[in-house]
């Protein structure tokens, strides 16, 4: 078991209970021991920053300071919620970048008897920890029920891959981490080009028409990609797409029924636990019918070894671009 500091965030206790429960169930099998920071407070989501800057950062930094106090060997602070992950790393980054700003935040923290040393903890998202630290091989070994036949649309939303202050993801536009994780579970991952598009965020609250258009685009894209389920890493995305889908349907006179669940739920499913026990059914667009698509087909054969020379296509078609692999001296 590897110990990590853990910041759950408010949603995990209310609308994202399925996320919390499924995470609790898979943490043990994955060998991760999440130590929740005692008495953490809300990260302010996207709201506090829009009212005042320094108090918003002080609010976030209180959590970082609490984490620093209990570091004890494990300096990685895992966040499961996107907004929380973004805010914690944003505050850490802003404080590390400017000593002057860091001093101001710490002056405020001092009023509560706290202090945070920039970069004392490394903020990482749960998905990043599972893919990079636990490793896909370890995940694969735990799979008892390959999710063959289940077509999943991986959906990350905005705040996990962007702005990526610490350079954790393969890409800020089209990161592949979630895709690779779902493939490791045996599922079929559809090409979902909207995987880092916005779900509307707080616009469901303050500008619903704007949000509905975004939600429609996302569920429409998933449906056109022939996905059974959308899989997300973010409570806000799950909430917006799931809970507001009917209102969106009413608004546009459409009838989309695209369920969306947390990636931890899908992992737990592949680890062989009955769907009801892992929060399936809590969503307003029921995901359970989609699970019927899981077939017991044998595992697909391993990928064929790379063909040295791809066969020349018949007909007049032009070859697709072949370029040097990335990272070759690129700055």
């Amino acid at each position: 078991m590897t110990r990590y500091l853990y910041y759950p965030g408010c949603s995990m206790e209310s609308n994202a209970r399925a996320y919390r429960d499924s995470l609790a169930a898979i943490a043990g099998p994955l060998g991760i021991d999440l130590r929740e920071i005692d008495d953490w407070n809300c990260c302010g989501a996207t709201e506090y920053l829009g009212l005042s800057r320094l108090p918003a950062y002080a609010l976030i930094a209180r959590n970082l300071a609490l984490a620093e106090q209990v570091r004890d060997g494990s300096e990685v602070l895992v966040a499961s919620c996107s907004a929380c992950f973004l805010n914690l790393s944003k505050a850490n980054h802003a404080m590390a970048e400017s000593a002057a700003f860091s001093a101001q935040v710490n002056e405020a923290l001092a009023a509560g008897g706290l202090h945070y040393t920039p970069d004392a903890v490394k903020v990482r998202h749960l998905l990043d920890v599972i893919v990079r630290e636990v490793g896909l091989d370890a995940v694969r070994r735990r799979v008892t029920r390959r999710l063959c036949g289940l077509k999943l649309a991986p959906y990350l939303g905005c705040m996990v891959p962007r702005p990526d202050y610490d350079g954790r993801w393969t890409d800020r536009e089209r990161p592949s981490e979630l895709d690779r994780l779902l493939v490791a579970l045996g599922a079929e991952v559809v090409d979902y080009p909207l995987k880092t598009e916005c779900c509307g965020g707080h616009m469901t609250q303050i500008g619903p028409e704007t949000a509905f258009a975004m939600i429609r685009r996302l569920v429409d894209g998933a449906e056109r990609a022939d996905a059974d389920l959308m899989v997300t890493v973010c409570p806000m995305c799950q909430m917006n797409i799931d809970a507001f889908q009917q209102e969106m349907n009413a608004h546009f006179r459409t009838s989309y029924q695209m369920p969306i669940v947390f990636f931890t739920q899908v992992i737990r499913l592949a680890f062989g636990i009955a769907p009801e026990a892992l929060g399936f059914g809590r969503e307003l667009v029921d995901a359970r019918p989609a699970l019927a698509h899981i077939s017991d087909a044998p595992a697909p054969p391993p990928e064929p070894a790379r063909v040295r020379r791809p066969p020349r296509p018949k007909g007049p078609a032009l070859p697709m671009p072949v370029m040097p692999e990335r990272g070759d001296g690129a700055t």
Partner: protein
Amino acid sequence: MTHAGNGGPRPETASAAAGDPRIGVYVCHCGSNIAGTVDVAAVRDWAATQLRSRGVVVAQDYRFMCSSLGQELIEREIREKGINRVVVAACSPHLHEGTFRTACEHAGLNPYLCELVSIREQDSWVHADRAAATEKAKAIVAGGVERVRHDAELVPLRVPIHPATLVVGGGIGGISAALELANAGYPVYLVEREPSLGGHMAQFDKTFPTLDCSACILTPRMVEAGSHPNITLLTYSEVERVEGYVGNFTVTIRRRARQVDESLCTGCGICWEKCPVAVIDTQFEAGLGYRKAIYVPFPQAVPKFPVIDRDNCTYYERGTCRACEKFCPPQAIRFDQDDELLTVDVGAIVLATGFRLFDARRVPQYGYGRLPNVFSSLEFERLSNAAGPTGGRVVLRDGVTEPRAVGIVHCVGSRDRAYNWYCSAICCMQSLKFAHLVRERTGATVYECYIDMRTPAKGYDEFYQRLIEEGTLFVRGKVAAISEGGPTPEEAGRLVIQVEDTLVGRQRRIPVDMVILSNALEPQADAREVAKRFGISCSLDGWMIERHPKLDPVATMTEGVFVAGAAQGPKDIPTTVAQGAAAAARVLGRIQQGEMALEPIRASVDAVRCSGCRICNNLCPFNAITFDEDRMSTEINPALCQGCGTCIAACPAGAISGTVFGTAQILSQIDGLLLRTAAATAEPAVSVQLEGVPA
């Protein structure tokens, strides 16, 4: 006191300069540049009185010291007043050190007994308080006076110049340089990595802004270079090692095995006709076409001999096939041919190694490599080329469909701090050329998405005007993303360019069938390695650095090594050709002098002090240091040494000393700057004393 200053001021050399120092101090007003902030007269008077004990015998000021009248003043006083050392307090040595040294030389004084200290860049330009700036100017002058006392007479080293030249890179820049030199009657070795001359220009169909056929203007130059009696053409070759110094380089070149006997091959083409292996040609066809395993890159290739691509040839894979060998009429195929190493002596080197294209997959939102109908600029060059894979038909990736609407995206990987900060200079004009070709070939609607339109050369903006007249639709805005179209009729099955039309202030979704990216130009992948091999440096971006960005654009900091074309930074064909010729002219100037003088800023080893510890041995960026195993002593080749001082700083024994920047010169200048030696100040409590420094 035993701690002698190393280098420079051998007391005996200094005294040879004519007995006791008789120093002349010349303070320049630089109009109001200096005099506006510094009380020049006060500095002059202070130097004349307070530095008299330090050897100053005369101090003068003048409005513009660098003018001919100012120089004459210095020359006159050297002759008439027996001045044997000169301190000019004016601008940065970068500007006028040469001017005043030459003036001294005219008056019969060794030019290295003249010091230029800056009271402009380091004083008047950076201060506002007149009194304080004046005091600082005095200190700077005192530093110069202390320093000049330790200056020694130096004589430039003269080295003969070998008349041959090495030109690296067989693109249009290298070809131009080689032809200029060869036509002047001097031998040239023209080295090209690819099997044929031509470079990027050979891939283009048309050149902007005149729309000349690229091949029509390039091919004659290639042929001329290939058959010129003074040019030794070494294609499919690379420079492995460079030794020696300006005038006398020894270059080792690896001639990669073509597997073809060039003395027999007639270039008839039967071999590549018969070869059964077709591979995607990522080089000349930019991945858009195929070539055989034995091939010439393109029909007009110079030389006409093919090469066998060993990585893809069935014979090297499985030991069978040999079709080319069987069918070759003159029996020129040589499967067992090995690389050859060739050593040549040259006097100068011109690097014209060009650029490479930015990998557009690094901008994932543009979909290159994922969305079939997104093309790179080079792909489009081949697509539109009459000799290209489609015979010049502009079609989609399916090879059939003509586009109805085409989007051209500027600044892909340029002007973006996430990729390359610089502007790639050619893309605006290149994109306009693309727009014209698309209109001409297909009549499609063309959207040209740009940030700023940059057309600043002869005939360029006129070309832009022409494209406006032709009906190209210009959209000012950096493209945000390119994606597959949505379900609407106008978008379905097409690409959508999402962009803010900044002139309207609204976001637009523009459906098109094809997108052409105007990729940035980047330094060659191995530019840094190559630069190091030739002893020059690259900027942070990776472009090779010229000696002076304005006044010496083709020379480098290494004597005898010149750079031309896009290796030095993104540039278009006219500029590249001009630089090739300019580099050749610089080389010719050297060759015709027969020999050249090297700046005597040099390091040398005192063999008595050198213990052979070998700390310095690996450090020289110019490969000037060798170790004599027998004498257990390090030596420095004075012609190779550029006086950078790396070894001097590293030598723990102080056995290596440098001229012009000797320890005694620097420490005495510091003493002067701190006014430790001026008569007006009290004797300091702690003073740096050195052997040979009169207390």
